[in-house]
């Protein structure tokens, strides 16, 4: 028997929630997957394109796949005069000139600068596949997975593709599983989110990483709150940090053998355990209230 509280009917349907943390392994995917599963219907978007793992829990069916490409330069040896303006321009050192121009595809960040700067118009663009976006369904959850090919410079183009408006259905809540850290790929993932959930561990290292994403969401002027994961009895430095900085604590997930076992068996806790169905339903309710109360977003 699965517990479904009455308030679920009142969930904000089209909110976009991004889940992030300063480091890997804090519980972003745990929180994101279980929030999506706790909702009546949801879109789950895995933006952790370097190591997407939400699909392991959802096991989506009916998968369709789309390739993601970027533009990289291609040199016309006939037109190239060897002036090397492009080589000197490239801040990523993706170009070298010996007796002809050499382009290092893996190093190129697709900024297009070399093509603009070439006085001989010897450089043109060509497509290069850097990864894929997979779409599938798992029960009432639409599952989007971004997969970046090994060795590519940046996952940003894949995240842009994942977050295209048509992937976020109007009558569904969208939950975004962000990459770890606070770099460009995370910025791209939270850019259009209505609300950010920061997941934190109860350690000093956890506080350091929480502070990184705290600074990021503050810079982005996003409304946000913290989920304290792996909670043990005793002092929680992440909780202390939240209290000191007046940060809303949305919920607490215990450091629990049952949850750990479910998770490591790629089971969605909400679907297997009444206790966790309730915990994540209450968390979803809290987040929904937060989103609704922040009005302007």
């Amino acid at each position, binding site marked *: 028997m699965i517990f479904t509280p009455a308030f679920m009917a009142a969930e904000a349907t089209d909110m976009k929630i991004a889940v992030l943390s300063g480091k890997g392994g804090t519980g972003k995917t745990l929180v994101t997957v279980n929030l999506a599963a706790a909702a009546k219907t949801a879109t789950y978007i895995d933006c952790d394109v370097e190591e997407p793992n939400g699909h392991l829990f959802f096991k989506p069916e009916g998968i369709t796949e789309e390739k993601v490409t970027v533009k990289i330069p291609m040199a016309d040896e006939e037109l190239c005069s060897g002036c090397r303006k492009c080589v000197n321009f490239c801040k*990523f*050192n993706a*170009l070298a000139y*010996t007796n002809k121009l050499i382009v290092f595809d*893996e190093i190129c960040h697709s900024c297009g600068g070399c093509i603009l700067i070439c006085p001989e118009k010897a450089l043109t663009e060509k497509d290069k596949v850097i990864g894929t976006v997979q779409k599938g369904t798992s029960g009432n959850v639409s599952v989007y997975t971004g997969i970046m090919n090994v060795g590519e*410079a940046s996952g940003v183009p894949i995240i842009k593709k994942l977050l295209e408006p048509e992937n976020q259905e109007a009558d569904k809540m969208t939950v975004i599983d962000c990459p770890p850290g606070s770099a460009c790929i995370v910025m791209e993932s939270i850019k259009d989110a209505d609300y950010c959930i920061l997941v934190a561990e109860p350690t000093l290292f956890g506080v350091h990483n929480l502070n990184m994403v705290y600074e990021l969401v503050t810079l982005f002027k996003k409304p946000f709150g913290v989920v304290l994961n792996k909670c043990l009895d005793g002092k929680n430095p992440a909780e202390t940090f939240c209290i000191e900085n007046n940060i809303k604590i949305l919920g607490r997930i215990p450091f629990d053998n049952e949850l750990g076992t479910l998770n490591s068996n790629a089971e969605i806790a909400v679907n297997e355990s009444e206790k966790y169905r309730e915990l994540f339903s209450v968390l979803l309710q809290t987040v929904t209230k937060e989103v609704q109360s922040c009005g302007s977003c």
Partner: protein
Amino acid sequence: MKIAIPVDNKTLDTNICASFGRAPYFLVYDTETKESAFIENTAATSPGGAGIKAAQMIVDNKAAALLTPRCGQNAADVLNAAGIKIYKTIAGSAQDNIDAFTDGKLSLLDDFHAGFHGRRSN
């Protein structure tokens, strides 16, 4: 002919730098004139692609050979395209390696490592 060596300091008795792309200096030595020059490696602080930029400097300084303990595949691609031979250094100072090179005692470097940023080994 000119040979280039990645070095830690601007002296002939300097250690060879363990990294090619991130070496602070390159010693450029002319085997005919016995003249040596130290050039600063501006690639050393690059966030990425240091080996490519460092190799470009070796090309631009018209060295015919590079003496280095190790070298990445990207740098090797640039050096090979320019016809620059890559030799593996031996223990000892820059001068020891110059002597070994002129005596024909250095062997060609043939195991290039993949980049540190996930470049596929294809």
